[in-house]
């Protein structure tokens, strides 16, 4: 094998080691990775064994809550002209059902599964940013519960989960219900992106040595693609919610046609997120299916490489289908045809996966245990949903079925078959790993059949009610249209589904009881590392991986890994640590010191959620205070980062020594910053798209940009900021006596230059007479300025932060990681500012 990093793969031959492990090594490891001992520590816990379980539990709580809303809707629709729910309440309930299912259940649930499973699956002690996972979880839970509680005050959003303007503009939705949606999901966006960063860096950088890309578990591939999709798709919803909230709060007319706005912009931005969202949910579930099916069939997955390709292709093509939700909006015919073709094409990679699962089942010995039933049941339902998906990808059919119950049936077949059933399969499959106790097989089979029959009874008739003309989102219907019987059947089916979920909840409570025997072992004969004996520290020692199915093909692992005969058998520095490896060949690179629990990220999460939620009720002063406190907590958290101590290298077993500190592209922090900046860049790109799109709608309303004489100063200052920031880290690395002081001052100057450029640009536009509430041009220009201003604001915090680190002695040429990240951020801010300034100044230009 050739080396990616200079690591000699021959060293792997030293493992498993043969010499006995030192006395007390395991006890020390257990002590270092100990669980909560005081009540407060259950909240500040950061280990994935805790946060992962909390996360899955919270996601399932929201699944149940949204399910209760569905039952309320089905009760209302069981008979024509019933008054069980008032019209307005019904609107709130269907909006919350969709929103909670998509934002508070589906994405967090699969992210949670990743946080829970990936460390064990990859052979890592934990994912690289456990505090980030904890922050993401608490922001999500607190914000989500408050958001849901809006229902009890009649303040829940009521414009549908896609919140189309003009229905959601202040003219038609004057209350704060829509604001709850727009601001309420802000913390979910943050949480999802934080989780995605954790998963990408975790999968690429914390794999067991030897776990090359061709030996990467299929679930980890799925999670990697899923997280990358979040990074590309979520910026679009971040931007669209910001724009609509700006229009509602400040009157900036992005979507108001009277001032050059266009509601179609919302649809483009929303569905650029919204359709990939379906695959964002589906891919991890498909990854779970591709893991569970080989285990229950006791054979290797047929076509592993093709399944990886299919998942990658799904990830790509899913970004080319967003406008198939907009076939009836009057888009140009040729554009519609492109999207129709792509919508049909996306069924090809999905089909590859389905055939791979069927082939695997056929090649092995299928065992109809509960995970197996859920996997096969999910496959059947998903295929049915996929077939109706191909139907609605055809434009003439879509024109007929659009906004009818046929679509409701289609989307539920896809989402329940593609995500809910696989999730239940995953829960039944992996619970013995997490709680050390299997769920009841007898109950599980009952639950499966109730759920399978309930699902089909609920949604199969909806195809007919849709084809008979029943529109979605109506709170009641007239008798004698032939809709009564299918609606009644749907309602009965939904309660069967609800009964299944209730039984499952009881079984889960029984399973997680704190007493009784707990030693399930590898119940289903799974082939992955997660089935090796483990503790809170994950695996006792991190094995060298030589197969895609290590537990099947390396049978000695079950003996040697718990005996500490592989990498990092203890805690050599008495701290929480894991091995960071290279992204392709998983060669050991360095030893990452992992954080211990503290409360700053919990408070940060509380104040972040508070900021968004308090903003909704228009208590602006309190909201700002909450925001400042959130920033303070996060800065406090950052202050404790990058404090290396102890020896420069440490023995990690087999005579291999690894460095304890690296910076630059090899470090996990660098990767996280790059991914964060990709998110920011995507928001800027989507904002630029919005700018050009709105110009193309009403070019007659656009005025000439400010005089170009002020542009060179802006560009010059931005160049100074970018070059200065980048040079500052170079100066630091030189290691000369005054390098630290000089670099800190240079960085401060660079951030001030970025601030100056922003001020100059803002003054130029203000001086031109253009106002943000005057036209779509004003709105988009000032939105771009505000986005850039946010980055400049953060950079202006980072400059003094760098100086403070120098003053407190935390800045040194040997430890430049934090400083490099600040430099990356400042350089990005400069590039983003340059690109957006050039766009709005030169396009469409003076002749506008």
């Amino acid at each position: 094998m050739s080396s990616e990093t200079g690591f000699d793969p021959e060293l792997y031959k030293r493992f498993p080691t043969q010499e006995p492990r030192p006395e007390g090594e395991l006890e020390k490891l257990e002590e270092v990775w100990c669980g909560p001992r005081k009540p407060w520590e259950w909240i500040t816990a950061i280990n994935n064994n805790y946060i992962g379980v909390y996360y899955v539990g919270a996601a399932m709580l929201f699944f149940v809550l949204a399910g209760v809303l569905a039952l309320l809707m089905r009760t209302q629709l069981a008979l024509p002209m019933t008054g069980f729910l008032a019209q307005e309440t019904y609107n709130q309930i269907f909006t919350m059902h969709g929103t909670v299912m998509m934002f508070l259940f589906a994405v967090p649930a699969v992210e949670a599964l990743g946080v829970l499973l990936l460390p064990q699956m990859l052979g890592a002690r934990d994912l690289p940013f456990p505090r980030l996972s904890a922050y993401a979880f608490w922001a999500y839970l607190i914000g989500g519960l408050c958001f849901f509680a809006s229902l009890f005050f009649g303040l829940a959003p009521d414009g549908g989960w896609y919140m189309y303007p003009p229905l959601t503009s202040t003219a038609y939705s004057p209350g704060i219900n829509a604001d709850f949606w727009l601001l309420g999901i802000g913390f979910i966006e943050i949480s999802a992106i934080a989780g995605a960063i954790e998963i990408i860096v975790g999968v690429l950088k914390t794999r067991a040595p030897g776990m090359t890309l061709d030996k990467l578990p299929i679930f980890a591939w799925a999670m990697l693609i899923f997280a990358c999709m979040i990074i590309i798709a979520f910026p679009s919803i971040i931007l669209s919610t910001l724009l609509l909230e700006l229009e509602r709060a400040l009157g900036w007319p992005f979507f108001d046609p009277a001032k050059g706005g266009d509601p179609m912009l919302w649809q483009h931005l929303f569905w650029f997120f919204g359709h990939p969202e379906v695959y964002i949910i589906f891919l991890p579930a498909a990854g779970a299916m591709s893991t569970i099916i080989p285990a229950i069939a006791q054979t290797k997955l047929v076509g592993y490489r093709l399944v990886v390709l299919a998942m990658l292709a799904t990830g790509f093509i899913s970004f080319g289908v967003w406008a198939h939700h907009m076939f009836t909006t009057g888009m140009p015919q040729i554009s519609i045809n492109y999207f129709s073709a792509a919508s049909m094409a996306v069924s090809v990679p999905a089909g590859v996966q389905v055939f791979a699962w069927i082939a695997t089942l056929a090649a092995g010995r299928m065992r109809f245990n509960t995970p197996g039933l859920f996997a096969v049941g999910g496959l059947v339902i998903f295929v049915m949903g996929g077939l109706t998906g191909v139907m609605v990808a055809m434009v003439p059919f879509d024109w007929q079925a659009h906004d009818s119950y046929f679509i409701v049936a289609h989307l539920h077949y896809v989402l329940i078959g593609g995500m809910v059933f696989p999730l239940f399969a995953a829960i039944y499959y992996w619970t013995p790993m997490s709680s050390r106790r299997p769920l009841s097989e007898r109950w599980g089979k009952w639950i499966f059949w109730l759920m399978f029959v309930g699902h089909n009874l609920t949604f199969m008739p909806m195809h007919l009610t849709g084809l008979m003309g029943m529109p979605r989102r109506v709170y009641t219907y007239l008798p004698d249209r032939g809709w009564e019987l299918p609606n009644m059947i749907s309602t009965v089916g939904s309660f069967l589904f609800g009964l299944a979920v209730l039984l499952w909840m009881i079984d889960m409570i029984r399973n997680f009881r704190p007493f009784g025997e707990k030693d399930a072992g590898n119940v289903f004969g799974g082939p992955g590392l997660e089935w090796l004996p483990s503790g809170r520290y994950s695996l006792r020692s991190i094995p060298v991986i030589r197969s895609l199915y290590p537990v099947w093909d390396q049978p000695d692992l079950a003996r040697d890994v718990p005996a500490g005969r592989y990498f990092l058998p203890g805690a050599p520095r008495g701290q929480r640590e894991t091995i960071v490896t290279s992204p392709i060949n998983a060669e050991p690179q360095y030893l990452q010191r992992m954080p211990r629990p503290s409360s700053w990220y919990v408070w940060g999460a509380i104040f972040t959620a508070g900021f968004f939620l308090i903003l909704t009720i228009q208590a602006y002063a309190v909201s700002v205070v909450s925001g400042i406190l959130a920033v303070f907590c996060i800065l406090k958290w950052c202050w404790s980062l990058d404090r290396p101590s102890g020896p420069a290298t440490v023995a990690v077993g087999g005579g291999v020594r690894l460095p304890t500190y690296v910076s630059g592209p090899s470090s996990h922090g660098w990767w996280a910053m790059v991914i964060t900046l990709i998110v920011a860049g995507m928001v800027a790109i989507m904002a630029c798209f919005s700018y050009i799109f709105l110009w193309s709608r009403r070019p007659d309303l656009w005025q000439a940009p400010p005089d170009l004489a002020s542009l060179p100063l802006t560009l010059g200052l931005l160049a100074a900021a970018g070059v200065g920031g980048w040079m500052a880290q170079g100066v630091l690395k030189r290691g000369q006596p005054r390098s630290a002081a000089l670099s800190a001052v240079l960085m401060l100057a660079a951030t001030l230059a970025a601030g100056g450029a922003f001020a100059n640009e803002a003054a130029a536009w203000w001086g031109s007479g253009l106002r943000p509430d005057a036209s779509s041009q004003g709105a988009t220009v000032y939105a771009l300025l505000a986005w850039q201003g946010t980055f400049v604001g953060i950079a202006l915090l980072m400059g003094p932060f760098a100086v403070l680190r120098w003053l407190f002695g935390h800045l040194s040429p040997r430890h430049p990681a934090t400083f490099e990240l600040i430099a990356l951020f400042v350089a990005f801010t400069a590039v983003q500012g340059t690109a957006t300034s050039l766009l709005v100044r030169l396009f469409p230009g003076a002749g506008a």
Partner: protein
Amino acid sequence: MRFWVLMTGGLLIWAAHFLGLYLLASAADVARGDAGAWNLAGLIFSLVCLLGVVVLCWRGVAGLRVPPADETRAFGLRLAIAGGVLGGIGVVFQSLVLLTPA
């Protein structure tokens, strides 16, 4: 990075092709010019993308002819070829829209 680009090259070309066609269609809509000329531009762009797919697949096949340095490299090359074929089919399928009478 080169490894990742090679491995996902076919899909990247598909994405670039889709984006290109969408932008051309949008530009045609705004310009309201001769639809035939825009279609021709789309077809030329599609041919360029197809050429890219062919080059990618050829590189993959050539890389596999000499024994690859390791299994991971071979895995990446095979993925690149399969992705190239899939991307090529996608490009052709997408381009058929241009040949369909409006």
